[in-house]
């Protein structure tokens, strides 16, 4: 078994990786609660995925066709995912509706993603399918919406194996614009990502690594980082549905202890949630000393969060050296940098006033977490606004090159050309390097990262357009980390409507919070109401989002000089007098 962990030649496609994993004797375990657990070996997944592939083929799914997967964490997901892969089709995992959540916005967003990905079919569960009527009516996938069971049939005749350069997956990125972008990844890119992570998985004593993950499977960290990583490695992986973790964070740590897991990644908010919510009695009998790699990424990392987690769970054997801050993005498959295993997280304290592109970093008050060095085969440069590389300790744009990069934003050549240049990817993030480590300090793309999920700023701005009291088109959304907070929160700068003076600022703030929560599921961290004309605009009248946020944070956001009727009349009289004086001069 140990020999199989490092194949002589890395598999070239996800299908060949699954075939290798099928011989390992390992597989997936699904945990819904400590009493509710089921297992599925990689061999069984392969066998049933071949049946699913045959059914897909029979139903008219052809090589290269995109198939959307709207599935919860459970056995259906790997069967449908690898069924698509083995049929030569391209899976497109999308998020299922939230229980008790509103559906209107879900239909609009999901239909937009189905259309952008050109999905020909949706695979879902019976329960979720009954809710997707409007989504299906909007996006009209030619082969409709069906369940995994519909495709179970005898795998007669070999399916067409995918070639390494074929597309293997479409995952969505928030990108920089109003619409989410379909990131197209080849088998080569995903397998390169899995290979790049392999050095992190090398145990001290050559033991098999065991994974636990509650991360959603429609998210790069959950899908590529956990599920596909476990297939490529190959090793055992235990999956917990994300909603079970959110409702009961202790289940995550209890499962790690029970499975004697060595690897479990999560965004920083999860570490903060655990430190805050888990009670001592829930940890009774738990031993976390086997957990040697707690990869932490997907959102800005507040150093205090990691310190608090390590301190809180040290009594149960957790070591701070297990924490491995990382950085990545969907356009580069997943991870770009990661802290070496067994190294304590490294922090720097920088001057927040000296973080402009091209500027040298100075010592100061703002704590920043190092996210490690680039993974093998990945190159990283910090560049100035002209695209020239900068030295260590200089702030600039983060550019990345390597075999893990996306092929394109699917069928969007202009959007692709805007970020992929000469084989390099403009990440839209800002940072600096020091002694081989990357530090991420901000971003130029219009994205707000809340609880590990990227949200487009436009998503929040658009939902307020028709709210009474808000000046249409005069809303700016951004992310900010309040002092003492565990992570990034949503900031909204809103110009009040000049025609709704009767609505008080407090009432407007309350209405804004309700609207944003209802429409997006996100609780705004801070809502600021400003007078009409305060937010800076371009000469053509478009809002300048970055400038608005910069001015707010610098405390220089101020309303324009009031131009009342009386002031105008005064100006007129003054100029008339001036005119008269010039005329009366001899």
């Amino acid at each position, binding site marked *: 078994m140990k020999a199989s962990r490092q194949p002589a030649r890395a598999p070239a496609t996800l299908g060949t990786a699954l075939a290798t994993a099928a011989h390992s004797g390992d597989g997936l375990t699904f945990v819904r609660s400590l009493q509710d657990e089921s297992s599925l070996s990689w061999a069984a997944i392969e066998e049933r995925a071949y049946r699913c592939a045959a059914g897909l083929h029979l139903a008219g799914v052809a090589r290269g066709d995109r198939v959307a997967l709207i599935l919860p964490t459970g056995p259906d997901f790997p069967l449908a995912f690898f069924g698509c892969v083995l049929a030569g089709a391209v899976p497109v995992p999308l998020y299922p509706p*939230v*229980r*008790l*959540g509103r559906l209107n916005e879900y239909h609009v967003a999901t239909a937009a993603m189905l259309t952008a990905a050109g999905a020909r079919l949706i695979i879902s569960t019976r329960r979720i399918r*009954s*809710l997707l009527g409007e989504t299906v009516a909007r996006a009209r996938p030619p082969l409709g919406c069906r369940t995994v069971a519909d495709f179970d049939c005898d795998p007669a005749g070999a399916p067409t194996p995918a070639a390494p350069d074929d597309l293997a997956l479409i995952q969505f990125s928030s990108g920089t614009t109003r619409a989410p972008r379909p990131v197209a990844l080849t088998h080569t890119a995903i397998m390169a990502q899995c290979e790049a992570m392999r050095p992190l998985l090398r145990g001290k004593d050559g033991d098999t690594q065991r994974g636990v993950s509650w991360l959603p499977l429609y998210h790069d960290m959950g899908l590529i980082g956990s599920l596909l990583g476990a297939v490529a490695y190959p090793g055992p992986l235990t999956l917990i549905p994300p909603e079970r973790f*959110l*409702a009961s964070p202790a289940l995550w740590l209890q499962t790690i202890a029970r499975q004697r897991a060595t690897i479990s990644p999560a965004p920083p908010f999860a570490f903060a949630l655990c430190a805050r919510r888990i009670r001592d009695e829930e940890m009774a009998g738990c031993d976390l000393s086997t957990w040697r790699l707690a990869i932490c990424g997907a959102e800005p990392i507040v150093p205090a969060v990691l310190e608090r987690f390590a301190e809180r769970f040290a009594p149960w054997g957790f070591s701070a050296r297990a924490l491995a801050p990382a950085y990545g993005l969907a356009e580069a498959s997943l991870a770009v940098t990661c802290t070496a295993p067994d190294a304590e997280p490294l922090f720097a304290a920088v001057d927040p006033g000296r973080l402009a592109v091209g500027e040298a970093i100075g010592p100061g008050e703002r704590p920043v977490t190092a996210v490690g060095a680039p993974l093998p085969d990945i190159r990283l440069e910090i560049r100035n606004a002209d695209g020239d590389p900068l030295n260590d300790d200089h702030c600039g744009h983060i550019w990345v090159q390597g075999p893990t990069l996306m092929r394109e934003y699917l069928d969007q050549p202009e959007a692709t050309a805007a970020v992929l240049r000469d084989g390099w990817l403009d990440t839209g993030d800002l940072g600096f390097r020091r002694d081989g480590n990357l530090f991420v300090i901000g971003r130029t793309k219009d994205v707000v990262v809340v609880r590990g999920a990227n949200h487009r700023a436009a998503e929040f701005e658009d939902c307020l357009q028709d709210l009474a009291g808000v000046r249409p088109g005069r809303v700016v959304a951004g992310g900010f980390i309040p002092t003492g907070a565990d992570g990034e929160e949503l900031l909204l700068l809103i110009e009040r409507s000049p025609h709704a003076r009767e609505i008080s600022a407090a009432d407007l703030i309350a209405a804004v919070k309700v609207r944003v929560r209802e429409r997006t599921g996100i609780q705004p961290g801070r809502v600021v109401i400003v007078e009409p004309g305060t937010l800076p605009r371009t000469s053509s009248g478009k809002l300048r989002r970055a400038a608005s946020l910069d001015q707010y944070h610098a405390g220089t956001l101020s309303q324009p000089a009031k131009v009342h009727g009386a002031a105008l009349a005064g100006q007129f009289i003054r100029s008339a007098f001036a005119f008269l004086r010039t005329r009366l001069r001899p």
Partner: protein
Amino acid sequence: MNEREQEVLDEIRKIVTVTLEGTGTVTPGDRLAHCEVMDSLGLITLAVGLENRFRVKLSEQDAPGLETFGDVIELVNRRRAEAGR
């Protein structure tokens, strides 16, 4: 409000104040969206918390028509009755 309704309301209040660290008292007439802690994480926590406590299943299909905490109480009790609990 009968005993069964009060039971569910008490559990909702516990989830809102203890688990989600919300402030203020929940009453059945309050809209979910007006409760500060009922963002997407809050809704999931509420749903799973009620499922665990009352051993019922709340599905995605239950979302339409749920406006107030009173609606949630009614839904939970309907599911309890269906399951004979």
